[in-house]
């Protein structure tokens, strides 16, 4: 780059796709954990496959995401300094603690879910029906401890999903990222958008992992509600910031990726699915997940390319 005549602009994209994917995976992890833990806590005879899928997906997603984050550091091997040098005024510093605790809880939860599955099946296979009662009591015991982990984990999952929005919205010098809720100057917009998207994509990914199983109608209905809320939020965003953010190369990403693939198509498919096919999961859920990734990329890039 010609520093005298080339306006001296370095690459304006400081946080690239690695960070976008990290934010996306953190959302998936949070949403998947919430799907599993809330099923576990609130649904009697909660669907084991959904719980298992979400419980296993959450730690995998967050650990891969953190891996990308660390890889993106200028000094990856010094990542531990983030834990020992704390700045309470920095959203990222607070986020480090939220995500670390969430990661531990999600691993613990996955372990508890995994062992209870093993205990259940082993006892049944070996001893047959006679031992079913003991197995049931044992399982109930784990559910007690597991309930606490599920509950605490759910709180930190909420924190993790919301944090990904706060991370960007806290950059007050970035006009796009720090957009406020219309009319309410003190409340940033992105945490809401990212939370809803996290719930939606995490739920979708969990259902994909659960595969076609029993009746998933409840989950699909929740997903429809989430998609509708997200459509409203995206519309609000579109109406409240300058049009330039949706222009150029990002126009396709926004209209095709975020709006069509991520919102409109899955909404239509889900409405159709709920009314006709109980187990039609794959197409709609995959689209939601792809749309969630498109949303993170769009927001991360739009904030940096246009200022």
């Amino acid at each position, binding site marked *: 780059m010609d520093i*005298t*005549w080339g306006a*001296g602009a370095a690459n304006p994209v400081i946080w690239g796709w690695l960070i976008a994917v990290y934010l996306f995976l953190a959302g998936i992890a949070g949403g998947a954990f919430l799907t599993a833990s809330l099923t576990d806590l609130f649904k009697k005879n909660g669907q084991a496959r959904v719980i298992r899928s979400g419980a296993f997906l959450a730690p995998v997603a967050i650990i891969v995401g953190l891996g990308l984050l660390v890889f993106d550091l*200028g000094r990856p091997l010094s990542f531990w300094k983030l834990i020992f040098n704390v700045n309470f005024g*920095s959203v990222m*510093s607070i986020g480090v603690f939220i995500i670390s605790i969430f990661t531990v809880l999600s691993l613990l939860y996955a372990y508890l879910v995994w062992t209870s599955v093993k205990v259940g099946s082993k006892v049944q296979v070996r001893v047959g029906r006679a031992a079913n009662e003991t197995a049931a009591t044992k399982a109930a015991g784990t559910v007690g401890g597991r309930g606490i982990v599920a509950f605490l984990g759910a709180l930190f999952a909420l924190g993790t999903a919301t944090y990904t929005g706060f991370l960007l919205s806290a950059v007050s010098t970035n006009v796009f990222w720090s957009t406020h809720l219309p009319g309410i100057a003190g409340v940033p917009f992105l945490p809401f958008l990212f939370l809803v998207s996290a719930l939606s994509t995490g739920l979708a990914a969990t259902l994909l992992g659960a595969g076609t199983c029993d009746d998933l109608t409840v989950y699909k209905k929740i997903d429809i509600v989430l998609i509708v809320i997200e459509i409203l939020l995206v519309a609000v965003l579109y109406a409240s910031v300058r049009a330039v953010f949706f222009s150029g190369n990002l126009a396709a990403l926004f209209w095709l990726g975020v709006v069509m693939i991520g919102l409109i198509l899955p909404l239509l498919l889900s409405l159709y699915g709920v009314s006709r096919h109980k187990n039609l999961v794959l197409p709609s859920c995959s689209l939601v997940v792809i749309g969630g990734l498109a949303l993170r990329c769009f927001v991360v890039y739009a904030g940096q390319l246009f200022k």
Partner: protein
Amino acid sequence: MAKHYAMVIQLKKCLGCQACTVACKFENKVPDGQYRTKSPAIGPSGTYPNVKVFFEKQACQMCQDAPCVKVCPTTASHYNKDGLVLIDSHKCVGCKYCMTACPYDARFINKNTGTADKCTFCYDTRLTKGEKPACVTTCVGGALLFGDANDPQSEVARYMATHRTEVRKAQFGTRPSVHYDYEGVK
């Protein structure tokens, strides 16, 4: 009274020779392809007979309300005892959060260290020895003034008292310590 180091840039005196760009590279061993300061051409703009072009020296603006310090998760970016924004490279992990927050594109990840880097007003190498920054002493056009703005007798304080200067991107409320006099170029 505490010091408040400040720089005043008189744009009409800058020839765009890039002597400051080079001096800074000498002084601070800035890696190839990276810059703590540069003076890009702004323009040319307008139509004949009102065509204008000028050079705007850009570097860290030494904000007094620095967004980079606020967001830094490790406290690597901090205010030193003289109120300057500096980076403790031992603490920096290279997360680039500060770079996303700096509205002046003043920062970069040093290729050699992997940590954030930017103009220091030559604090360690020159200010502490009572010398002015390398770019200031090198400036061919005499466009750069430097000193303690809290000392009414200093060159910068006297200049600012008698001239209209501006800070860049005032809308972000960063309260920069680098002041620009656009008189004669804008």
